[in-house]
């Protein structure tokens, strides 16, 4: 890029980049830390994944594909797809709106909103689900009201999507707020004084500024949406062939049907998707830094 313009004197970066190299891990302390990290990764991550891999493919590929090809499994994946994608779309729109609100405006109740967004991170997803049931269930505060307008929340997709949004929205908001705060308001104010409307400012200044962070947050939230179990379990009523998502299907296969082979097959697919999402987000993060 730089060679298309007239050369100017710019400091040439030293061959070894300015980033301080990690200390060589040779001291006894660092060896202990490395050991702990390896035991942690080995016992809690690699071993279970290896077991699942082994159990997935041990009965043979036929069994694996048959398990995925069953109508219940296909329906569960479809359900997960619909719920996760809807939730991610909502997360993107609301995430940007809430983050801009938190980072750019000072208003009464701002701290409350901030705490509220974070709440699902610290509270068990089951509690989130129960809260939704209390509000939108047939006997809840707003249940009859939304029912009257033709929307069934509990035991149906709308409730599952709302529950999923609840638990995954913080991932988007928390990815955006620091970037917005760091970039400050001056670019937007400059755009305003140049004649840009609010929509133009959002589209031409704010969104490009947060693009990388938004992509990162959305990918993370997608992974979370696909894997959500607790909140969806409570809200969906867990009805096979109707509101059963892939993670619920795994649970049901293990607990009710004792069909471990099918459970491992679905789990394997979920792991692959989550892994892809994490790799993607790591790649985005790396690109953003450079």
């Amino acid at each position, binding site marked *: 890029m730089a060679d298309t313009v007239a050369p100017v004197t710019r400091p040439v970066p030293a061959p070894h980049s300015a980033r301080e190299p990690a200390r060589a891990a040779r001291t006894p302390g660092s060896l202990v830390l490395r050991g702990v990290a390896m035991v942690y990764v080995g016992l809690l991550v690699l071993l279970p994944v290896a077991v699942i891999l082994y159990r997935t493919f041990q009965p043979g590929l036929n069994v694996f594909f048959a398990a995925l090809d069953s109508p219940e499994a296909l329906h569960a994946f479809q359900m997960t797809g619909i719920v996760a994608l809807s939730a991610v779309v909502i997360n993107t729109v609301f995430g940007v709106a809430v983050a801009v609100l938190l980072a750019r405006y000072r208003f009464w109740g701002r701290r409350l909103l901030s705490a509220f967004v974070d709440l699902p991170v610290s509270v068990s997803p089951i509690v989130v689900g129960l809260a939704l049931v209390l509000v939108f269930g047939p006997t809840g505060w707003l249940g009859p009201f939304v029912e009257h307008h033709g929307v069934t929340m509990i035991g149906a997709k709308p409730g599952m999507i709302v529950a999923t949004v609840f638990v995954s929205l913080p991932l988007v908001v928390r990815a955006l707020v620091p970037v917005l705060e760091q970039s400050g308001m001056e670019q937007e104010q400059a755009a305003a*004084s140049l004649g840009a409307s609010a929509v133009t400012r959002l589209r031409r200044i704010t969104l490009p500024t947060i693009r990388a962070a938004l992509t990162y947050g959305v990918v993370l939230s997608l992974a979370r949406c696909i894997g959500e179990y607790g909140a969806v379990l409570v809200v969906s009523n867990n009805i096979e062939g109707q509101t059963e998502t892939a993670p619920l299907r795994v649970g049901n296969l293990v607990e009710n049907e004792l069909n471990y082979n099918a459970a491992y097959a679905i789990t394997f697919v979920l792991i692959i998707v989550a892994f892809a999402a994490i790799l993607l987000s790591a790649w985005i993060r790396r690109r953003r830094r450079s």
Partner: protein
Amino acid sequence: MGIQVHGIGKRFGDFVALENIDLSMRTGALTALLGPSGGGKSTLLRIIAGLEKPDTGTVEIDGADATRLAPRHRNVGFVFQHYAAFTHLSVYRNVAFGLEIRKRPRAEIRKRVNELLELVHLEQFADRLPAQLSGGQRQRMALARALAVEPKVLLLDEPFGALDAKVRKELRDWLRRLHDEVHVTTVFVTHDQEEALEVSDEIVVINDGRVEQVGKPDELYDRPANPFVMSFLGPVTTLDGQLVRPHDIEVFTDPVGDAVPAKVTRLQRIGFEVRAELGDTGGWAQLTRGQSEALNLAEGANVWVRPAPGTTRIPAPRQPT
């Protein structure tokens, strides 16, 4: 015409940032808002631009009431101390921004942007990102960006504050020349009195949310309204109950007319100037090296001093004792 400000007041909580400001800035003039840090200069400038809402008062731009107008309808160019460059856009796109959102024809945009880039000497940097420019270059880009939409007024908030002394001086001369070419009504904020005296047609001294004095640079320098203005425009000292400028003090080795006796308690040379501390009077005099040598000054010497006839002096504020 120009900018009229009437009865502007602004509080942040209990803190009074601006109190009943009345000002009028002439069309085509380069006006400096000068004052110490925290005095309210930026707040006033941001109110004129519409980036801040006043609690009381009105703002008129070119004869039209703008008090309730959104920033984007005010047609002002604003230049921020820290450039506020659009970091994801090239220099060219930064400058073109205002024209692009006005949906001007491409050819016209290209012509105007290239003219402006030439004006601010950034033609060869058009394709760079702001991060690849120096601070001074970034600020010139911000200036070109603000000028692109042909604003009625140009507002600059300490445009050179983040730059080193040498670049600052270059840019300030350049701003003056630019203004002589473009002739847009310009208000710029500074807390550097030299910058204000050197560049502006008119200076507004603001302190503690109030206007201390308004006038041409020479008027302010020769007839400061109060001790604050006088001491803000350069070093002052007290002599015989009066505030005077140290370089306006005449030093004699023999008693002369109304001169008062003093003893040189300290003699300090700084480059071409010599500072003589006059112990018993509490003041000091600034002389050239030549003057000091001609008088044969030395520490401990007895001298007679007085303000040179016809120079600026005002009663000194009562010192807390």
